[in-house]
C-alpha cells in the first residue's frame, strides 16, 4: 500500500503537516467502521490530526470500496459503512424445515385436482366437513392452487384450480393424468374397504373410528 511511500520522508514533518492522504483514508476507514452512528465530515476532522481533509479522504475511501462487500454511504449529512445491499441474504441464517402436508390439506388438494374448477362449498360437500380458511390459504401460498373463474351459479362463488407448480411438483403433465378411481382401486388403494352393499352392524357409529384406522394405514 501507499503507506510505505510516506513513512520515511514525512516522519519529521508529521508533527506539523497533516498526514498523507493514504493515512487519512485509513483513519476515516477505522472511524467509520467502529462508529455506532454515521459520522459527519466535521466530526471526522475533529478526531483526526490537525489539517486533515476528511472530505477528500472520504472520496478516496468511497472509491476504494466500490463493488466490495462493504459500501461507504452517505446518511443525511453524515457518512457510514454498510454491507452491500445485494449481500443482505448473508445476514440471515435460513433453516428450512420440510413437513408433511396435513391430511386436510392433502384431501382438499386432491379434490381440487380431481374436480377443478371447484368451489369451496363443493369441496366441503365432497369432504363432508368444512374446509378451514387456513388450509386453503396454505395451498394458495404454496402456489399449488389458485383462484379459477367464478361459477355462473347464484352468488357467483370463486373456484379453485391447480397450478402449473402443482403439476410440476407431482410430475404430471396435466390434471387429467391423475389416476382415476378405477386405477386407484387397481392399485389397491380402495381395496381395504368393505364393498358397498355389505352393511355392517353399527356401521354408522363406527365410521369415524374406522376412518382414523384407515388413515393410519395409509399415512406411513
Amino acid at each position, binding site marked *: 500500500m501507499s503507506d510505505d511511500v510516506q513513512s520515511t520522508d514525512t516522519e519529521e514533518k508529521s508533527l506539523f503537516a497533516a498526514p498523507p492522504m493514504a493515512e487519512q483514508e485509513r483513519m476515516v476507514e477505522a472511524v467509520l467502521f467502529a462508529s455506532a452512528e454515521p459520522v459527519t465530515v466535521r466530526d471526522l476532522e475533529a478526531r483526526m490530526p490537525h489539517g486533515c481533509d476528511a472530505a477528500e479522504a472520504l472520496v478516496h475511501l468511497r472509491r476504494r470500496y466500490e463493488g466490495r462487500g462493504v459500501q461507504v454511504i452517505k446518511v443525511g449529512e453524515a457518512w457510514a459503512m454498510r454491507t452491500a445491499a445485494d449481500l443482505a441474504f448473508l445476514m440471515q441464517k435460513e433453516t428450512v424445515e420440510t413437513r408433511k402436508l396435513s391430511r386436510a390439506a392433502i384431501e382438499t388438494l386432491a379434490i381440487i385436482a380431481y374436480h377443478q374448477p371447484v368451489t369451496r362449498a363443493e369441496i366441503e360437500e365432497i369432504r363432508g366437513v368444512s374446509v378451514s380458511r387456513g388450509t386453503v390459504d396454505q395451498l394458495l401460498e404454496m402456489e399449488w392452487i389458485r383462484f379459477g373463474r367464478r361459477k355462473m351459479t347464484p352468488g357467483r362463488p370463486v373456484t379453485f384450480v391447480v397450478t402449473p407448480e402443482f403439476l410440476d411438483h407431482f410430475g404430471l403433465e396435466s390434471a387429467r393424468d391423475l389416476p382415476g*378411481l378405477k386405477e386407484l382401486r387397481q392399485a389397491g388403494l380402495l381395496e381395504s374397504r368393505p364393498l358397498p352393499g355389505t352393511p355392517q352392524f353399527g356401521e354408522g357409529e363406527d365410521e369415524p373410528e374406522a376412518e382414523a384406522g384407515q388413515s393410519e394405514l395409509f399415512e406411513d
Partner: protein
Amino acid sequence: MDEIEFDETPQEPQSVADRLAAEALIVDVDGFEGPLDLLLMLSRTQKVDLRKISVLELARQYLAFVEKAKALRIELAADYLVMAAWLAFLKSRLLLPPDPEEEGPSGEDLAAHLAFQLERLQAMRTAAAQLMARNRLGRDVFARGVPETVERVKSVTYTATLLDLMQGYARIRTRDEFRPFVMDRDSVFTMEEALERMRGMIGFAGTWTDISLYLPEGWAADPVRLRSATAATFAASLQLVKEGKAELRQQGTFEAIELRRITDK
C-alpha cells in the same frame, strides 16, 4: 546451588537506609499479598538477577522483618509466621554442615525451590503486565460499531407426494360410496333433537304425561320414523331424569311410560 552465599557478613547492624526500608515494609504489611509477595519484594533489595539471589540473605531479611513487626506489636497473619518458621529451619539447614544421618532434602534443594517459586511468581507478574499492555479490544482495537444481527429465518416447506394425493382422494371417494349407509338421516330422530324438543315442552306439563305425547309431529305415520322417534324420546327422557329435571314411572308391563317435571323447591 553455588549461587547461595554462606558468608556471615550482614550480621552487623543494618544501615539506616536498610532500617528505614524495613520499617516502611512493616507499615505497608497490608499491601503485601502474603509472605511470597513480601519475599519477592525483599529479594529486590539484593539488586541481583533472581536466579542468583542469596536465599540465606533473604531468609535473614524476612526474619528481621518478622522480629521488627513483633517489636512494633504489629499483628502478622499466621502464614507470615509459618513462613518465618520455615525460613528459620531453612537457614539452619543452610548454615550447618549436612548431617549424613538426616533424611529429607538438603538445604540447597529447599533454597533452590524457594528461588524457583520467587522467579516463577516474578515471571507471571511480568507476563501479566505484558498481557495487559497488549492492544486490547475496546481500548486500542475496535470491533464493528453497528454489528448487524444475523436474522434467523425459519421457513417451513410443506410437501406431499402423488401417492399422498391419491390416497387422500381415495379416502374421500370411498367415504362417498358408503354414503347410503351412513347418511340416511332423514328417518333418524336423534336423542339431541328429542332432548331439545322435550326441554322446551316439559315446562308446560306439570303432571304425569305419556312420553309418546312428546313425539315430533308427523313422525308416527312412518313405522321407521316412529321407531327412531320413540327410541330418541325415551333416551331423552332418561337423560332428563339423570339430570334431575324429571321423573319417570310405568304402572305395569307394557303400560304407558309417564314423565313428570320435578319442580325446584
